[in-house]
Structure formats: C-alpha cells, structure tokens
C-alpha cells in the first residue's frame, strides 16, 4: 500500500514510476489505436445513410469522450491537491489541461468536418457544440491563469480552485443533447443500455476509445516529465 501511495507524495518516486510505465503504455496505446483505426477506416461496413463519411466517428467520438473525461481527471487531482496537499496534484492537472485542450480542439475540428456532409454546415450554435466550445475555452483559461503567475504556489492553488468550479459544466455538456432539441445526435453508445450502432462498427470504435485512452495517458506522462524539467529550471 505504501509503495502505491509513495509516487503521490514524492516527486522522485513519481518520476521513477513514470519512466517505468511510459514505454509500455505508449506502445500498447499506439497498437490499439492502429487496430481500431485500420479496422474502422478500411474494414468496417459502409453506413446505410451517411456512406463513408461516418468513419470520422473513429476519431471524433473518442476525442469527444476524452475531452470530458480528462476534465474529471483534472478535477480529482485538483481536489486531492487542495484537500490532502498531494504534491504531484498540480503537475497532473496542468499536464492533463494541455492534453485536454488539444483533444477538445480535435473533437470540435473533426465534428466540423463531419458536419458538412451530414448537416450541410461547418458550425451550428446548438447546445452540444456550444458547450464543448465552452469546455475548450475553459482549458485555455486554465492554462492562461496557470501561466500568468510567477509564484507557482499561487498559480497551483488558483488553477485548482477554477478547475473544481468548472466541473459544473461537464454534466451540462453530457446532457445537452437530452435536455435541448439539438442538431447533434444523442449518444449512440452507452454503458447502461444497448448501443444503437451495429457490432461491426462498434468493436473498432471501442478499440479506438481504449487505444486513445492509453495513448493520451502516455502523452500525459511525457508532458508531466517535461513540466517537471521546466519547474526545475525556474
């Protein structure tokens, strides 16, 4: 138990653990993404209504899922930093913010590309798209706030507080397609109920999601090491 908790309180232990697990996570993530995307882009059947354009689902949906999950990840680390003074809390929060910002942007961009053949428009101010855009602004805001304070202690505290308050937006984003009549379709896959898409399309999607998760986690490990180096310099 002590060995599990040590990386939380000791930066040295965290770096050691980071260096140990990074290669495996990254390789496995790339492997799963490759399987998922190759299967999805080349072997999954054509959609009856959307044709081949639906294949962007294998990029867009995993990105959209992780844009929200990464925020929850940040909120948990911010909470643990504020309450239990976990040393690596701010480091994980900011590393995740960089990743989350990138992922949200890709989700919005890929969604725009999908919008042209499906809705005939790049952009629409509907609930889901607008709330995801707000999420992107939140990531940018967090990074801006964190970077604008010379005093790292102050920066970490303020970033943690803003992260925690911003959590209110995540359920709104998730439920926006159910609460409002939006252009964006409701969720096709759900943990609690049966999926509305065919298994031959669903399996590559699930593999893509898992692969992207591991890849982003590995990327986060790398970013956190780079940030530690930056902190050491200053």
């Amino acid at each position, binding site marked *: 138990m002590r060995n599990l908790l040590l990386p939380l309180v000791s930066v040295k232990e965290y770096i050691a653990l980071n260096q140990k697990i990074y290669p495996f996570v990254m390789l496995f993530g790339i492997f799963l993404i490759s399987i998922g995307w190759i299967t999805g882009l080349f072997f999954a059947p054509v959609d009856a209504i959307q044709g081949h354009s639906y294949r962007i689902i294998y990029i867009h949906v995993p990105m959209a899922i992780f844009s929200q999950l990464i925020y929850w990840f940040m909120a948990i680390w911010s909470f643990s930093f504020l309450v239990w003074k976990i040393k690596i809390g701010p480091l994980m929060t900011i590393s995740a913010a960089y990743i989350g910002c990138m992922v949200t942007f890709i989700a919005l961009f890929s969604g725009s590309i999908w919008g042209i053949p499906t809705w005939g428009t790049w952009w629409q101010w509907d609930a889901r798209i607008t709330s995801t855009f707000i999420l992107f602004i939140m990531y940018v805001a967090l990074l801006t706030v964190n970077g604008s304070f*010379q*005093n*790292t*202690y102050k920066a970490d505290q303020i970033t943690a507080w803003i992260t925690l308050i911003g959590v209110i937006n995540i359920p709104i984003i998730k439920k926006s397609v159910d609460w409002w009549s939006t252009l964006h379709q409701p969720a096709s896959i759900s943990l609690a109920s049966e999926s509305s898409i065919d298994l031959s399309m669903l399996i590559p999607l699930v593999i893509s999601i898992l692969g992207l998760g591991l890849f982003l986690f590995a990327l986060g490990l790398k970013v956190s090491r780079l940030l530690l180096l930056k902190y050491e310099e*200053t």
Partner: protein
Amino acid sequence: MITARNLSYSINKNTLFTGLNFECKSCTVFQILGSNGSGKTTLLKILSGITQPTKGEVEIIGYPKKIFLGHKIPIKDYLTNLQNFSFLNPCASVKDYCSYCEAVNLGVSKSMYSSNLSFGQKKKLLLSKIFQQSFDILFLDEPFVGLDKKTINLVKDRIIQLKQNGALVFITSHQETIDGDVVIDLDTRLIDQ
C-alpha cells in the same frame, strides 16, 4: 505573546530567510533590520497573519488587537480627509480629527478630497490609526518614510507610549532607529537583545 518556530519563507527557488526562532512578549519593541530584499516586510506579514510561511509556524496566544501598516497607504482619493479619518478610526469624532491635525501639523480642510494631499500628508493621515486607537501588537513597516522631523518624533513617542502600555511593536526602518529592545538582523540571522 507571539512565538515563531523555525520560520522559513521562499518563493519558487528564492529563499528569503530560514530557521528563524524567537519569542516575543508584551512591552517590547522588536526592530527588524536587513538589506533590501532580505525579507523584512515578508517577515512582518507572516507575523501579522497576512502571509503563510513556507515552513514553520507562528503561534499567537489569545486574541490580541493587531494592526499592520505597510508601505502602501490605504487612503481613498474619492473620500474627503474627514471621511478617510473616519474610515481608519470608526470611533473617532470630528473633534478628534481636528486635534490630531493640529498635533501633527496637518493643516488641511476636513472637506477637501484626499487626492490633493501629498505623500507625507497621506502618511500622517494613515498614522492617525496608531494615535487614535490602542493596539496589543503593531507591525510598522517603514513608518517614518515621508514624514517631517517633528512628526517622526511624535510617532516615536507614541510607539514608546504604546510599548509602556503593554503593546508589542515590530518595526522596520532604514532611516530612523528607534531604541529597539530586540534587534533581528535578517542578513546575519542574529537576534540581539
């Protein structure tokens, strides 16, 4: 009244001071010396509770009435001199204002806006706080800056009077030395009695 144990303060990698230990009782004037950037103001802020130390702790026994008067002057430009005086001293009257102005030679109208005051005049108005009220602990950061010689002597006398009445005074000053009972030198880390 105040006990400081192993006080350290650093911002990012810059350590101002470390391992300060001292105990302060009432009826004492503590003089804090040090070069620019040695952490005099920071130490005062830590002792007064404005800032938290990086390491160590400050223990204050009871609930003493404290005041911190720093470099900045909280005089509002959009208020008149009398309004600012009332803001600083809620229980003081117009008569108190007039007698204080006479004592420190602050010959300004009650209804004049404080934006027209000079730095020294604003400082005099601010220092009315220590004249009109009594405190158990005073933290005075460069209190003599901008004051004329007569007012400096008045302030020194008031500090000594407060000390004799049981107050604990922390003071930093590059210019005027006041006979401090205890001197804390942040450059040499010496605490001299």
